[in-house]
């Protein structure tokens, strides 16, 4: 597969770019400043559905477009450029990737509602301050016909607006082990579930969720009991690659705005873009972005073509996206100077989103570490 978008993918990119640029960064400001209770616009999400975006990964049999991760990544990149708050990552990417492993009945029930923009999902996996799924401690003990869930989850994207949660819990083994994990589909309205929305630095959705003796039926299990690791990793990898794509959008847009600014701002009687030191730093950053774009596209392609071999590519993509986006937003703020420190200008918003994207589903350290582990050193 050549490392370029196909014609269809390029068309999708253009349509996503046009659609999302309409509301642009203003939408994030609205959500933040109005303290929107949902943290995103239901109308805009419906428009996502009308554009077909919600169903990119869903099979055609369930109303979706039956496209792949490359296409999802294309949309994510434009979301990144516009900092659009939406449940696209949690629902259209992660939710659909997870629910593909559900029973036919459940798929027939849930997927069309996701595609229609009527159902939001959330993945509850992290428990500590840092992403580390193998360290899942939350317990799921057999109880009656099903399981009883006890534990705490944090950094659950769209957790406070989710109609349905996918929850990783431990049915066997001990903290730190990959074996013994099981995924559950849980209704957030179940007794014992308490949800606290956590307002984040980037004004995107996240929540902490407590599970206190939450009873679920046996058919809440997604995949196999004790064998949830592989499924979870697959779902996470889909999320990581999509997020990497979003971060390329964030970093690239911050970079583009910075280069534009360099061509306008005067200091010492010259355009600051004339200063060679800034030229070299910009040229380095452009190179860095190009290399990262290749890594991210490859990861998305691998998820479509050879998902079982995708893990190292996904880690390279997420690690690179984390570092490159960080560099891009740092250079942006520094080159904008004082004005870049003000809330009036958008640049700071890119820095904030970049930071959250870096942390979500494993930062660059987590993923470089994974590369080292895979090579067993």
């Amino acid at each position, binding site marked *: 597969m050549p490392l370029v978008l196909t014609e269809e993918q390029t068309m999708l990119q253009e349509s996503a770019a046009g659609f999302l640029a309409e509301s642009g960064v203003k939408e994030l400001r609205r959500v933040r400043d109005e303290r929107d209770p949902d943290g995103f616009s239901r109308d805009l999400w419906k428009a996502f559905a009308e554009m077909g975006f919600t169903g990119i990964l869903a099979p055609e049999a369930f109303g979706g477009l039956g496209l792949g991760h490359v296409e999802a990544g294309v949309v994510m990149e434009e979301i990144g450029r516009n900092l659009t708050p939406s449940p696209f990552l949690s629902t259209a990417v992660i939710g659909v990737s997870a629910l593909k492993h559900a029973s036919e009945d459940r798929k027939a029930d849930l997927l069309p509602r996701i595609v229609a923009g009527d159902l939001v999902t959330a993945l509850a996996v992290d428990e500590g301050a840092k992403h580390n799924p193998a360290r899942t401690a939350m317990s799921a003990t057999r109880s009656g016909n099903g399981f009883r869930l006890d534990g705490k989850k944090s950094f659950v994207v769209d957790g406070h607006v989710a109609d349905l949660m996918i929850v990783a819990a431990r049915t066997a083994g001990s903290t730190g082990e990959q074996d013994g994990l099981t995924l559950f589909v849980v209704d957030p309205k179940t007794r014992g579930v308490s949800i606290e929305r956590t307002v984040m630095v980037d004004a995107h959705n996240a929540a902490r969720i407590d599970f206190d003796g939450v009873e679920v039926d046996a058919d809440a299990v997604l995949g196999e009991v004790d064998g949830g690791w592989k499924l979870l990793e697959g779902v996470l990898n889909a999320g990581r690659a999509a997020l990497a794509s979003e971060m390329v959008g964030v970093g690239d847009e911050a970079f583009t705005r910075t280069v534009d600014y360099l061509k306008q701002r005067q200091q010492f009687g010259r355009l600051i873009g004339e200063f060679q030191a800034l030229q070299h730093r910009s040229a380095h950053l452009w190179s860095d972005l190009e290399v990262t774009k290749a890594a991210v596209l490859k990861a998305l392609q691998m998820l479509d073509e050879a998902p079982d071999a995708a893990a190292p590519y996904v880690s390279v993509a997420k690690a690179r996206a984390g570092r490159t986006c960080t560099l891009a937003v740092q250079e942006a703020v*520094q080159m904008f100077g004082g004005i870049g420190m003000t809330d009036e200008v958008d640049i700071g918003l890119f*820095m904030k989103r970049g930071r959250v994207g870096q942390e979500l589903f494993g930062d660059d350290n987590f993923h470089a570490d994974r590369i080292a582990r895979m090579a067993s050193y």
Partner: protein
Amino acid sequence: MAEDLEAFRKDVRAWLADNCPPEMREPLKDVEDRCWGGRRFKFKNEAQKLWLDRMAAKGWTTPEWPKEYGGGGLSREEAKVLRAEMARINARSPLDSFGIWMLGPALLKYGTEEQKQKFLPPIIRGEIRWCQGYSEPGAGSDLASLQTRAEDRGDHWIVNGQKVWTSYADKADWIFCLVRTDPAAKKHEGISFVLFDMETPGVTTKPIVLISGNSPFCETFFDNVRVEKENLVGTLNKGWDVAKYLLQHERTMIGAMGQAAGVRPLGQIAKSTVGMDGEKLADTLLRTDIARLDVDLMAFKLAMERTTDRIKRGLSDPAAASMLKYYGTELNKRQYELVMSVGGAEALEWESERSRKGDDARTWLRTKANSIEGGTSEVQLNIIAKRILNLPGA
């Protein structure tokens, strides 16, 4: 000499034990807990006011300033002892003040005797709060191109123009300000350093909301503001000399900021967020970054010490302040990137009690300004290239 110091240490320790209220030995809960003084300042509690008054009475809000103006009159060694003893009991700073950090040193060097008598004591006692009027919208790094005009009206000037990045202008009582007194002169010439009351008619301020969510800075507008000529500091049209002197103080201060902040050791915090694997942090990559930062923080602390010692010996490099400013602020930014990395998801929370209302995130964002304010990193590097390395065209 060493014995005298030990005696002094004993006295200080005893005095602090008696005079520093217990509330003032608690760590700051947030930035709101800092004492800035000034005409409109609202003390958090009785203890805060007591602590300021007692320290000010001894002159210890400015330990090394001359006694004649109300300062502590301490030697550098004695001042070090005082700081050490305060640190020992976690005593808070009695007074944070741009008057102390910036204007004071400039007045001591360039002020007339009358100016010193008039302005220094209220600074020391925390009665007058000062702000700085340097930057303008078109003149950020390029200060010399500033536009605020002061028209000569015999015994006073009429000032018109606009400043940005005036720290706490909305809370300050007086401003020290660069204005153009000779519009015909070019660049660094024709600028004067003047002082005036922020309540003078024609002065208005508008806070700037920062990405950290705070508004420590303002835009400040001058519309026919009357400034008395007696409030000129230094020579007419030579305000650039005063500003440069003062900038060096500011640079050293900003460079040192990360040090003073007293960040908890990152290696220890990381233990709880990433866990241990034997005797090492489980995230070995994070461990690497923390270890390398610790090496550099320690080295930078020594570089500050060395610079002070070299200045004392008359060995100061012309751009030492630029080096400390550049290196210190870049280091501080790196440190706070790691604070965020160590803090993980929790540090990203913006309003929760858990995250102390986003304290880490807000400080992280605030550090990004360190390498911009007081002369950008790029400007410092230019200065070093020119004044130390004598590179052509620098």
